[in-house]
């Protein structure tokens, strides 16, 4: 899965040393809460869109403000917002659907 962060897949921090397999890929996270939030967010995205897999995700924002994301799967693209609390998704809103060239 292509991501915009080089550090923690959710928040880009490089502290910590926590690894979790998400979508068949071993990913780095700064802590277990970020890992849970990321995994739950991907599962929610798949259930809302009906996608079988996610090819790319770009995340902007933080814990307090919530996060604006753009995700793609094949030629499909969605923009959405989510917020989490201790790794559990508390708000999830699809903002727009569209198509996009595969990144």
């Amino acid at each position, binding site marked *: 899965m292509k991501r915009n962060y080089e550090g923690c897949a959710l*928040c880009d*921090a*490089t502290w*910590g*040393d926590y690894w979790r397999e998400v979508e068949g890929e071993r990913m780095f996270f*700064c*802590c277990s809460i970020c890992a849970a939030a990321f995994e739950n967010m991907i599962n929610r995205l798949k259930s809302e869109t009906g996608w079988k897999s996610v090819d790319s995700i770009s995340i902007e924002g933080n814990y307090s*403000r919530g996060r604006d994301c753009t995700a793609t799967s094949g030629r499909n693209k969605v923009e959405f917002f989510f917020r989490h609390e201790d790794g559990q998704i508390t708000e999830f809103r699809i903002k727009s659907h569209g198509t996009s060239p595969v990144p």
Partner: protein
Amino acid sequence: MNICPACGRELKDSNISSLSDHFYSLALSSDPAHVMWLNRNISKKKMSEEGLKSEFLKFYDFTEGGLANWIRKRFVEKFFGEKPNPFVKEMQRPSKYTIMGYVTEHYHFLRQWVKSCAYIIARTDFADIQKYEFDNIAEEYFGIGNQTPHIELLLQMGESVGLRREVVLGSKPLKKTESALKYWDEVCSKKHWLDAMVSMHSLELIADKNVKSYGARYSYFMPEILDGGVTKETAHFLKAGYDADQYHSGEALAMVERYAKTLGMEMEVQSYFLRSADYFYGYLESRQERGKMYEKEL
């Protein structure tokens, strides 16, 4: 005794090395509370042990401007900076639901407030501190002379936007409010009175009308809303807090600075302030959350 601002653990030495080493080892083991604290306050980028120590030295350094101004600066960065607390953003032009959320959670806050101040009175022998807390309790809770106490003004503000006081009085605080109240009760009833004092009165900076002179991008609300855009009662409550909190926090922070120096508690006071500000952040989020709940319900 100095504490870790992320987990509250008492550290055996009140120095930067002890604090920095504690954070470093817990961050290496991916402890969420410590990693998040570093991300938010120091840096998202991992650094060497020595590098982190140096960053902590900079973060805790108050030689320029003194301790009270260091507290103001940190508070402003956290609540009024480029990424303000979401409730502060909402308060710039508050909807009636924002006000309803404010009233409900703040009612619980004030009930704890009076206890916190009373604990400080009971746990210090300094008469100036006791007098300060006594006056503060009177103003917030009982009213001085023929002035209406702030808690009554708060309930009137709620009623002015359609929130019955019985609903407020019968409510239970939301999770983050409850957790913050529990923390403040614990600090004020069990820890040094100066730790309690900085934990509580630094929070009054939220309504300090001078925050922009300390570098804030926002103030608690846009002053022009007092002249229209909110109910008369809302303007009355906000103005009372705006006028009072400015000298409340200023006077209290001056006392904190003086006594922290005399008692050799400066670093400890800084850590207690930081921890309290984190709980306060969550408490403000609860106000916003409660407002959203009213918006859905009503």
